């Protein structure tokens, strides 16, 4: 009857979408938690969490991941009960739910990595199963917005009524705006989904209800959507978002009572959750972008060949001027395309920082310290590859700050500091190219003398010297030092990420008993290239795949020594071409030449083939190239350095530029 459809093909799509829903669930649960501490129920977020988990459960069932179904099913039941009964979630329940989202996260990750997905943790299932129905029933009197049509009012839940009625307490107002869909309005960008997005951007959408109306020219579908919103925006702004006249916006609450401070705002401020604007966003697997980049690389290679052919034609006396113009144009287009693909890889910094509140939250619980987190992420965008490498470093710095720098509440009180410690993460963009990210705390600061004594060196005079000292692996892994000095472990690793992997900088400034700030400055993009790794004279190198013509096996004993040459330039023949062969170790001055079967990497310089003999090809991988900016280490033929993941800098050789050396040798030989 039908071609078999294997729903397991949807696993990677599931992984991407589940991650999105988990992000929503986590950030909403954190909002509910901080609100619950302030005694506010935040019922409207409960439904969002419910919906996120419900969707995860359904998808997990379709792709057959039972353990995620089991966990999300239990969480969903708790949330549905709370939503239907309009009860507040207790802190214990919220905690259990957060444990649940973590357990799902772990399993989604296992699925993504192709690992077997673990069973649901028995302790978690038991915890979720035995959470009592919330003890506090909603006994609070629900205030109802007065100016609402009874037909509409009866369709609202208690939480929605409350949301509308308490708008004025938060310095906002509740409005009703009716939207009449029609094909003509849809063409102008006014469809219900778009209207909903636009209204959400300027206020809190309480409810949208469909309403049958007589079909008229104004309402050709016989349909109106009643939009109920709480906002501080002006009626005219709301009208513009819905696409109606300002006088069609109806205020639902008569008077504004500004005497109550906006408690909920204060609570939400604690976790500045920059909800990324989701309008028109397509989420794609990074591997697809990498694939596009790969395709582009091969395009660049074939362009190389094309221009070589053009040169050959010119040599035969053919007029290639038009062809040359076209090729130049083509080059520009390729560069533009490359820039366009790189732009697609950019992600908002908020996406990275959104996960920090979760970390601080769990640290708060594990250390028992009272810590406030402030995040100022701005709207900077950075390459996904940078973001992925940066995140662990941020986690490390934040963890160190809470764990080691912030004092216990007692100690803080003794020092005359507020009992609640402060950790601040700020991001700014510097001249469109670099991201300056700092993690600061108002903790105990670093005791330079103790650090120096432990390291058995003199007290560092500058912050730079202090950082060098802190980055000594031997020093920073000793935990008692970290507790005394106010700094934890792994700074050497952070510096390696910032400096060696990303080509940036790490700096520290610290005042004893006042606080410490670590600042990472990293490029917003890194150049990532597909490269061959190889070994020569006991060292590893990488060469970009795009410049390699081919890799061949050569026996140097067989290759003819170039007559009259002083160095070790040999020649071998391949497809009727004579190719000069140079031992790379000799070009780089790394030692004696080896004789025997070796690999030769063939590149072309201005159409001429040149081969470099190397010892062994190791493989092909994507590397992040860090340009060598220090003028003292700038060597022709070395374009940069990279970290292959072992912490050792590996040089990126530009064999085409090195070919210039051969030219000179050949010139001398001729």
């Amino acid at each position: 009857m039908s071609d078999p459809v294997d729903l397991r093909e949807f696993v990677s799509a599931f992984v991407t979408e589940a991650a999105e829903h988990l992000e929503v669930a986590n950030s909403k649960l954190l909002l509910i938690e901080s609100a619950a501490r302030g005694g506010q129920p935040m019922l409207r977020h409960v439904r969002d969490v419910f919906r996120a988990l419900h969707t995860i459960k359904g998808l997990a069932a379709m792709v057959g991941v039972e353990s995620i179904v089991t966990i999300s099913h239990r969480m969903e039941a708790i949330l549905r009960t709370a939503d239907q009964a309009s009860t507040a979630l207790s802190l214990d329940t919220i905690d259990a739910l957060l444990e649940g989202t973590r357990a799902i996260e772990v399993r989604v990750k296992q699925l993504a990595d192709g690992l077997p997905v673990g069973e649901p943790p028995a302790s978690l299932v038991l915890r979720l199963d035995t959470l009592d129905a919330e003890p506090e029933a909603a006994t609070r009197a629900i205030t109802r917005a007065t100016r609402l049509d009874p037909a509409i009012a009866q369709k609202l839940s208690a939480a929605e009524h409350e949301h509308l009625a308490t708008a004025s307490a938060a310095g906002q107002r509740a409005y009703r705006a009716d939207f009449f869909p029609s094909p003509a309005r849809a063409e102008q960008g006014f469809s219900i989904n778009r209207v909903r997005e636009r209204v959400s951007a300027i206020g809190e959408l309480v409810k949208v209800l469909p309403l049958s109306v007589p079909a008229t020219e104004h309402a050709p579908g016989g349909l109106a959507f009643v939009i109920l919103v709480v906002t501080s925006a002006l009626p005219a702004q709301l009208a513009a978002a819905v696409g109606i006249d300002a006088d069609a916006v109806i205020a639902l609450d008569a008077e504004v009572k500004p005497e109550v401070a906006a408690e909920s705002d204060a609570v939400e401020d604690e976790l500045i959750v920059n909800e990324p604007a989701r309008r028109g966003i397509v989420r794609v697997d990074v591997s697809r972008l990498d694939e596009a980049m790969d395709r582009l690389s091969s395009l660049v290679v074939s362009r190389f060949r094309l221009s070589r052919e053009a040169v050959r034609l010119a040599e035969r006396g053919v007029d290639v001027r038009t062809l040359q113009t076209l090729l130049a144009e083509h080059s520009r287009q390729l560069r533009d395309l490359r820039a366009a693909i790189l732009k697609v890889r950019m992600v908002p910094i908020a996406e990275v920082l959104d996960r920090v509140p979760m970390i601080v939250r769990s640290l708060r619980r594990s250390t028992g310290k009272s810590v406030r987190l402030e995040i100022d992420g701005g709207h900077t965008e950075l390459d996904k590859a940078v973001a992925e490498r940066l995140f662990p470093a941020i986690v490390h710095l934040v963890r160190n700050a809470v764990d080691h720098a912030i004092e216990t509440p007692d100690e803080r009180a003794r020092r005359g500091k507020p009992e609640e410690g402060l950790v601040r993460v700020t991001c700014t963009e510097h001249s469109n190219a670099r991201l300056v990210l700092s993690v600061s705390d108002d903790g105990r600061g670093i005791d330079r003398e103790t650090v120096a004594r432990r390291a058995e060196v003199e007290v560092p005079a500058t912050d730079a010297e202090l950082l060098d000292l802190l980055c000594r692996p031997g020093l920073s892994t000793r935990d008692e030092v970290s507790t005394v000095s106010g700094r934890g472990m792994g700074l050497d690793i952070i510096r390696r990420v910032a400096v060696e992997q990303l080509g940036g900088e790490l700096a520290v400034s610290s005042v004893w008993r006042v606080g410490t700030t670590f600042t990472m400055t990293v490029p917003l993009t890194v150049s990532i290239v597909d490269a061959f790794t190889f070994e020569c004279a006991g060292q590893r190198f990488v060469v970009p795949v795009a410049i390699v013509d081919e890799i061949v096996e050569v026996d140097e004993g067989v290759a003819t020594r170039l007559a009259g040459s002083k160095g070790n330039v040999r020649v071998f023949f391949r497809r009727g071409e004579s190719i000069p062969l140079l031992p790379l170790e000799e070009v780089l001055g790394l030692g004696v030449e080896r004789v025997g079967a070796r690999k030769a990497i063939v590149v072309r310089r201005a159409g001429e083939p040149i081969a470099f003999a190397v010892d062994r090809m190791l493989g092909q991988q994507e590397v992040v190239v860090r340009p060598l900016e220090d003028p003292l280490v700038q060597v022709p033929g070395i374009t940069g350095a990279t970290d292959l993941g072992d912490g050792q800098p590996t040089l990126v050789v530009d064999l085409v530029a090195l070919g210039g050396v051969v030219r000179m040798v050949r010139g001398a030989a001729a």
Partner: protein
Amino acid sequence: MADVLVVDDSNVMRDMIVACLRSLPNLAFTHATTGLEAIERLSLKKFDLVVLDLNMPDVGGIEVVEFVRAQDQLRALPIVIVTTRGDESSRTRALDAGADRFMTKPFTPDAIVAEVQALLASGRPTT
């Protein structure tokens, strides 16, 4: 050619449903990501069948069914509910509201193809 409206707030779920139904000939698919969008589309264009999720923001599947069945011109529109909410009360509510079929996730590709085929073949007038 029959026009099918697939309503689910999960992109992946909509793709799965369409992948399952693609084996049936002469179907054209339109996606709606919310219950609101479903109502909007149904009010502006004629569809031959709706595949509808229950759990969506603002207006859930059951409310969509209730709204649709209250409209004269949509009274006979075939509706298949596809939901994770497999409990008996959801089923009863959905069928009482006027849904024609009720399927729970996970479903097999063959199962949804069979339901949709049966509904389309029953030749219920859709105007």
